[in-house]
């Protein structure tokens, strides 16, 4: 779960990371009122979970009530790379002497925590990583030991921060690491971490990503979850406990297991189609889950056909088949549904479907055949041939020929 800047800052502050006072507001009037409580100058900052806010005009300095009103009106409702700004953070402006970068995350390859600090902060750090990798000091931390002072020193000396900033930066890094671990975060990142003219070190931005798997021991996570930021389809899926990500295509996808679903997306693409979503029903899905999934997918107006691709392990194909039939009985399935069943109880599942034919319910023998059929059917529904779908990568390829 990715947090907004203001949520991240409020969490980091609990662990002793120095941040500026500020208020998160949803309206221009509230922005003006908040600025009045903070003292000018203030900064008006768009709260969106995407980089490049500054360049897009989403961060503005305001020296007066009028300026706050003007900037807040411009920014609220602004679309930044597809993210609509619904909240702005009004923060007391800071004097900046230097801008640094600091983060902690998990290095999967090393199986250790990774701390990174750079004196080149305030910019796109991935670009720095590519163009001048030596400018980023890196230190691995053993998860069983945790941070020791020397880790922080190695980062601060390694990044050649201004000597004035050293002790402040070391303190911030230790707090930041503590937040990383105690919040069960996948990432804590401060960019820029600033040195102020008075020598203090201060977090001017905050990117915090929390591990949903740890939500059970952090009751506070639920309050941070920003439902309104979700795609309405994702919201519907979440309410049904489904792992769903909305995409732009016309073939609705239901599968079991993230890898198989990703592979299904790829195969649909190779067949000249484009997936409307990623939906993983997980392991051991029963009939109810499948019916729910079908309901969410067919509720998407862009969907022209549905591809259900199940390889049973824990999941029993007979239950999946039952769920599909249930879906056809209880909801309005107005698009063709191609079904491929293999693995545990596949024969029973296929027999169940064969015994209960439904209009628009199309069995397929293999994954590739299923993908081809679903793409064809989607194209028919849209009144175009597969090769014409604007979403397809143009690779209608030989896979079409592999159908039953």
């Amino acid at each position, binding site marked *: 779960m990715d947090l907004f800047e203001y949520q991240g800052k409020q969490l980091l502050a609990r662990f002793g990371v120095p941040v500026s006072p500020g208020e998160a507001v949803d309206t221009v009037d509230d922005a003006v009122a908040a600025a009045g409580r903070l003292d000018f100058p203030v900064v008006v900052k768009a709260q969106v979970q995407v980089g490049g806010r500054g360049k897009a005009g989403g961060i503005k300095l305001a020296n007066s009530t009028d300026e706050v009103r003007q900037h807040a009106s411009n920014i609220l409702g602004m679309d930044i790379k597809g993210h609509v700004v619904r909240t702005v953070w009004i923060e007391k402006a800071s004097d900046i002497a230097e801008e640094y970068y600091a983060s902690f995350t*998990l290095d*999967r*390859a090393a*199986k*250790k*925590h990774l701390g990174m600090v750079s004196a080149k902060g305030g910019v796109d750090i*991935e670009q720095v*990583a*590519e163009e001048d990798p030596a400018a980023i000091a890196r230190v691995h931390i*053993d*998860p*069983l030991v945790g941070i020791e002072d020397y880790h922080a020193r190695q980062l601060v000396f390694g990044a050649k921060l201004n000597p004035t900033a050293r002790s402040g930066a070391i303190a911030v890094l230790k707090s930041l690491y503590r937040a990383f*671990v105690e919040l*069960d975060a*996948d990432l804590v990142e401060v960019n820029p971490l600033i040195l102020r003219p008075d020598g203090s070190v201060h977090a001017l931005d905050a990117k915090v990503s929390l*591990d949903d*798997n*740890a939500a*059970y*021991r952090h009751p506070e996570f639920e309050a941070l979850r920003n439902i309104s930021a979700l795609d309405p389809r994702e919201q519907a899926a979440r309410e049904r406990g489904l*792992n769903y*990500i909305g*995409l732009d295509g016309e073939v609705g996808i239901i*599968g*079991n*297991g*993230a*890898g*198989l*679903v*990703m*592979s299904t*997306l*790829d*195969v*649909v*693409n*190779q067949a000249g189609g484009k*997936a409307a979503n*990623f939906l*993983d029903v*997980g*392991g*051991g899905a029963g009939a109810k889950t499948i019916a729910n999934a079908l309901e969410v997918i067919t509720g998407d107006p862009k969907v022209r056909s549905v591809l259900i691709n199940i*390889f*049973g*392990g*824990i*999941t029993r194909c007979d239950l999946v088949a039952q769920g599909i039939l249930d879906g056809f009985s209880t909801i309005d399935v107005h698009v063709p549904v191609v079904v491929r069943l*293999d*693995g*545990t109880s596949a024969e029973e599942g296929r027999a169940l479907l064969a015994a209960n034919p439904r209009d628009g319910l199309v069995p397929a023998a*293999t*994954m*590739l055949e299923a993908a081809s059929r679903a793409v064809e059917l989607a194209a028919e529904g849209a009144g175009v041939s597969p090769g014409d779908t604007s979403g397809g*990568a143009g690779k209608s390829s030989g*896979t079409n020929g*592999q159908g039953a």
Partner: protein
Amino acid sequence: MAIIIDENTRVVVQGLTGREGRFHALRNREYGTKVVAGVTPGKGGTDVEGIPVFDTMVDAVEGTGANASIIFVPARFAGDAVYEAADSGVGVIVCITEGVPAHDEARFVNYVRRAYPDTVLIGPNCPGLISPGKSNIGIMPGEITLPGGPVGLVSRSGTLTYQAVHELTQRGIGQTTCVGIGGDPVPGTGFIDCLSRFEADPDTRACVMIGEIGGSDEETAAAFIASEMTKPVVAYVAGVTAPPGKKMGHAGAIVSGSKGTAAAKIEALEKAGCRVGRNPSEIGELMAEVLKSI
């Protein structure tokens, strides 16, 4: 031969009396796996269809000579179960549980690697592993496999593994061992651990490796294949059309920076001399070609 598990593997099921533990343990036993014990604190002395239940792993290992464990406990107890298994002395730990917090995982994986360098931890969030005809520890459908080799398979994905095994079996290509290492951020066992075991296994003549977007494990494995593997490797990477930066169910599947895209992984694997399939079917086709050529 096989890697990691075989007909001499004796398994304890941690969480045997739970719904999932019971279901899969019995299924594994039916396949022929030596399921010798279960552990559920407070239920010591009872049994599940003749499988004796113990209160602690130490008791189970002492009482039955078990040398492996499989974990089906809920995510919040999974770390505890892994530590208990490792300290009990079993040499193989298969953690099926999904949803384990990454910070817990990072700690127990490091603990097991350091304190018990010879212990193999598979998972968490994995389907387990199967040495066809010998032992099946996990949730993989044993009936889709084909005993006798010559292919060793390792995969980060669950159901995609079944799909790949299915493609091999349908073409009459058997497997020595199929390992689902799981797609979590800090898997106990990685591609390279398995590939190097397959390289050393006389009955394995070729390998299948199935990756997905996120992280850099496939790239690192490619470097290992180029420098250390004499046996051919057929690969597949899922997620070519996955939108960058979005989580695809697996915590691990986040595209990060220039590495991590399916395209970069496929390129690295092809450079390392692997044949890379464009879809699961091609895994079977390519492997059939590879086996003819060696």
